[in-house]
């Protein structure tokens, strides 16, 4: 499995994925610093709420789809599937490696964004102490809530030959988050809304009308369903 991941790493490390990964942290850093320069005072929880609304409602689901599409793009483009499938490697390993890389990219995105938030808080002089527990829960929760979406987007990206198609479908389904994320009936079951429900802090600092909780059963159920569907497709995929 290590060699499979190393092989995938060679392909991904020279792609444009890194520039795309920088978007969310760079945006957070910029807005935070501009707000600070204008003299806005804030707290850690305010900043976390602000960042997670923009990031988790839109960018995180979009980026998850883009990562999945990028990790499959070079296989579609240059006959990579055919090459991989004619090598002595089980398809399950290929599938697992691709999935692990996507969630690793999402994890890195979360870490960079957390770093950006810490820098903003430090420069703008947010009052101590740093709410480590809340930050960790928010960022880790956002990551975990992305897993079903990552599995679904990997399936879409392996099945669709074009790069734009899965990304566009993902974008179209991300935009309703603004509404569905506010619905306690549908939000917890909508894969695109789950990251935002998991990430936006609740309680004291959180917005009162955004206290819808994720449903762990829905999260785990959809994750298993999407992962299995994608895996079965990969096993049968023509090359």
């Amino acid at each position: 499995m290590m060699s499979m991941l190393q092989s995938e790493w060679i392909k991904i490390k020279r792609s444009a994925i890194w520039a795309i990964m920088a978007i969310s942290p760079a945006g957070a850093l910029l807005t935070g610093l501009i707000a600070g320069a204008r003299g806005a005072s804030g707290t850690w929880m305010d900043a976390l709420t602000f960042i997670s609304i923009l990031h988790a409602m839109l960018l995180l689901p979009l980026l998850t789809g883009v990562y999945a599409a990028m990790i499959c793009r070079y296989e579609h483009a240059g006959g990579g599937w055919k090459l991989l499938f004619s090598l002595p490697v089980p398809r399950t390993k290929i599938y697992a490696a691709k999935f692990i890389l996507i969630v690793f990219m999402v994890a890195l995105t979360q870490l960079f964004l957390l770093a950006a938030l810490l820098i903003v808080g430090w420069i703008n002089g947010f009052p101590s102490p740093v709410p480590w527990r809340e930050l960790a829960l928010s960022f880790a929760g956002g990551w975990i809530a992305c897993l079903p979406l990552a599995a679904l987007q990997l399936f879409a990206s392996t099945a669709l030959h074009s790069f734009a198609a899965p990304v566009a479908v993902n974008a179209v389904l991300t935009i309703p988050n603004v509404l569905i994320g506010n619905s306690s009936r549908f939000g917890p079951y909508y894969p695109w809304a789950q990251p935002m429900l998991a990430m936006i802090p609740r309680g004291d600092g959180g917005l009162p009308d955004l206290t819808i909780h994720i449903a762990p059963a829905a999260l785990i159920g959809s994750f298993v369903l999407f992962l299995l569907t994608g895996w079965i497709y990969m096993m049968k995929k023509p090359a």
Partner: protein
Amino acid sequence: MTTIADSIVQTEALTKSISGKAVVNEVNIKIERGDIYGFLGPNGAGKTTTIRLLLGLTKPTSGTVRLFDRDIRNHRLDVLRKVGSLVEYPSYYGHLTAVENLEAVRRLLDVPKERIDDVLAIVRLTKDAGRQVKGYSLGMKQRLGIATALLGNPELLILDEPTNGLDPAGIQEIRELIISLPRTKGVTILISSHLLSEVEQMATRVGIIAKGSMVYQNSISHLREQAISRIRFTVNDPASAYPLLRSSGYEAEWDDRSLTIGRADNASTAEAVALLVKHHYDVYRVEEQTASLESLFLEMTGGERSL
């Protein structure tokens, strides 16, 4: 008869139907160790589909594929370890250099790192190895594809139209490379082409496929024998001379001016002439009609010219 252990590729009634139409129809391929097997047929005859079936990239509708005498349904990964392939068009990662492309595959094959330099040298890409592959010419991509196929020291090398996009010098290089492999490394090679002339000089055996069915499979020398000259006799009364030749065992044909006999060596030509003279026919001319391998190939494949 060779022993079963030497069978490298063997298919039995291999069939692939796509929406009811058999694109590969009951194909029996037999390739033995050390063969350079020329797999010929016009474009669209089913060569690439057959090769995909051999590699398990697509599943047969019926029939079996055995590589190294093992059924690929049960031992696919084991046998693929011994196979290097280039199917249809070369696979490559355009955003990577040739070295990175090979490294990504090497990690999965678990061969020493030096092997990358070896295969780059074999296909003469050492000089361009550090460039992104998307800037390569088709011929260079083709050579990288061959390098990738060679990377794992395969015992069976499957090359589907490997000279596509190569200039004449490149074609010559690939040909020399292919001829040298079985001699130096004991590699068995299956090479497909739509041009007989391309594999004629290197193949030891040929299989010819047309419209999904095998129409010929035997040694290249047997194919040459089929193509050797026919002898045409221009005589005064071909119609009455024809039964004479037939009754003496010749495969003869006639028209209003001449008689033609097939597969005639020196002795049988001389005997035919003696026979005609003895029966008082006037023999005006004795001519050799050479059927080229290419025309024989066209005849077998139903005259479909591929351009």
